């Protein structure tokens, strides 16, 4: 499976770039043959396009960063991140053999995404996570991340309210509404979910236009 994935990833390299990177060695005689005014091209080779030699070039199979390394969360503070992990686990638990948000690394990915987003989006997350911890402290005298499942579910009741076009006024409710979709998307689009029943994140990608 892993090998197949690596192969697919290679196929994602744009044809133009791939060819450019795999040009045969420079022909030493080329500089002397250049016409006046034509810049020398050190990558220009001698094989005509489409030759047998070009077809035999090796196909390397790289992977994506998530396939080889761990994300380094750095946007949320420790209490916020712990709360995000807890709420992510509740929103997208592991089900029917499919990985949940924690196994998919959704909290770590969202730490990156929200950290790269505008101030409004960052405020929604930080205020919501702080609000969850504050309410948890008030009701149970412990952080949200330390609650048992029943206690934590009690603080997620806004997610059981009917949808309205207007955003909720309460910071926790507003955060939960956004997080419900973000955690779900981050999980379903993850590399870990790729092999599972829930996977949905593929599409026709457009490279930048020339």
């Amino acid at each position, binding site marked *: 499976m892993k090998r197949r994935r690596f192969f697919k990833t290679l196929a*994602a390299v744009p044809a133009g770039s791939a060819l450019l990177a795999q040009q045969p060695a420079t022909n030493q005689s080329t500089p002397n043959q250049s016409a006046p005014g034509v810049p020398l091209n050190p990558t220009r080779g001698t094989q005509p396009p489409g030759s047998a030699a070009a077809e035999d070039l090796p196909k390397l199979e790289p992977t994506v960063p998530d396939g080889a390394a761990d994300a380094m969360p750095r946007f949320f503070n420790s209490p916020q991140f712990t709360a995000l992990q807890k709420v992510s686990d509740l929103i997208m638990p592991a089900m029917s053999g499919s990985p949940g948000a924690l196994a998919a690394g959704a909290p770590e990915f969202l730490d990156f995404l929200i950290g*790269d987003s505008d101030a409004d989006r960052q405020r929604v997350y930080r205020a919501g996570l702080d609000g969850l911890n504050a309410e948890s402290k008030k009701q149970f005298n412990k952080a949200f991340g330390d609650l048992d499942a029943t206690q934590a579910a009690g603080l997620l009741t806004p*997610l059981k309210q009917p949808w309205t076009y207007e955003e909720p006024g309460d910071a926790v409710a507003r955060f939960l509404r956004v997080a419900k979709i973000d955690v779900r998307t981050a999980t379903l689009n993850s590399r870990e979910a790729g092999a599972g029943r829930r996977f949905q994140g*593929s599409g026709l990608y457009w490279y930048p*236009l020339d």
Partner: protein
Amino acid sequence: MAANEYDVLIIGSGASGGMAAHTLTQKGVKCLMLDAGPLVDFNRVRQTKQAYELPYHGFGEPGKLPHVVQANEFNANQWVDEKEVPYTHDPKMPFNWVRVRMIGGKSLFWARMSFRLSDYEFKAKDHDGFGENWPIDQAELAPFYSRVEPIFRVAGRTEGLKQLPDGVFEEDTTPWSESMNRFIGQAKKRDIPVTKMRRALGRGQFASSFNLLLPAAMETGNLTIVPNAVVRDLTVDKNTGRVNGANFVDRHSKREMHAKARVVVVGASCLESTRILLNSKIANSSGALGHYLHDQTYITQGVVAIDKSPKGNQGGGSGGYAPRFVNLKKGNEEDFIRGYAFDFNLAGTPDPKYIPAYGADLDKALADYRGKAASVTIMGEVLARYENFVSIDKNVVDAYGIPVLHFQCKYSDNESKMLKHAMNKFEELCQASDFETLAKHDQPWPPGYSIHELGTCRMGDDPKKSVLNKWNQSHDIKNLFVVDGSSFVTGGYQNPTMTILSLSMRASEYLMDQMKARAI
């Protein structure tokens, strides 16, 4: 070096520019086409990828295309970069200007919905007193629609509706699903027609000028296309007062160039064409240039409802289209004028955001609702009002040094009342058809969302009130034509592409006749 001089310079390669080239070149007219974007090799620029292979895992780069709701991380590169070609607007009046720059233009990506306008639109003022009539009517444009539709292979069901004239269809005889029959029964009781979607089938993967119009034009040997040519402005012969070409900037090198022609046909899309004319400071003796900006107002997922029947989605198609059914009689039947359409489906799966659950409960609800959800896009007519306009922002230029557009545009109470009516009517139909409402709202996307900008070079018989005459020809400059959606007087509720194509074909044939008669 002496540059070529062409018979006709066509600016833009989308639906309108493509049709102008298609029509003119086949009659022997030598055309030069400039387009701001590249000629795309679709096999090279597109590739299936997994979301996790993208830097933002499918969420998209934050802030990259703030006005393009349609963009995602997969297709972000197909839209015009808002930093490269910016525009400005009052923060309280957002306008979502969604643009494509490549050979084929937006006709590469349109939703293919293919409708004719009726005299409820062409003669709207006669009906309810607001605005202006078009200088043409349905009968005058009908022969051109009839020639355009076979080129684009429009599928649809012949209905005989006055408010949605039939076309030359590849007749859609597919059956309806059980839930659609239930829904149609309730709609009939309320005099609401329901028909199959009218959609261009095209050829292969596109229904675009790229594959349906430009190849035939190229085959004549009479069309020269220059991609990556960003038009700055049109040039005018000081002696005759006529246009004689265009200044453009090469997109890659930023080199300034000039193209010469006897006639100029502008089809760069409604607002880019208007921007070119405004920057050229021509064709505006009426003062109407840039004004009367309108589109169609859209609500997506205005009502989401769940079918109570377990087998409603069986037996046939579950997607339908209900054209305008309000205000069809003289006088105002409602507390708003004009009308709207429903583009709907009764057998979808609801967006998880509408389901009041999370975790395993949400997954179970999604499984239970799969194939049972009704959802509707409401498409409403927007009144063409002078107060909604674009002008040149003298303080901002794009990456090519060309002054950009400033937008001043907002919807009125008429649109708000219309959309509330539409939401309530669709919910009424759903409930009467044994669906249970999951969510609803009557809040439209900002103006521009429908990607149907219209009206900023409107046509008319009176040169004091309009930019173009009924042949899409400038009142002020006889060898200048504008053939895109900017020529519309009213837009109705219908997607405009078939009308744009028909107007461009008609204008191009008139232009040819005028050139033959040496009147131009």
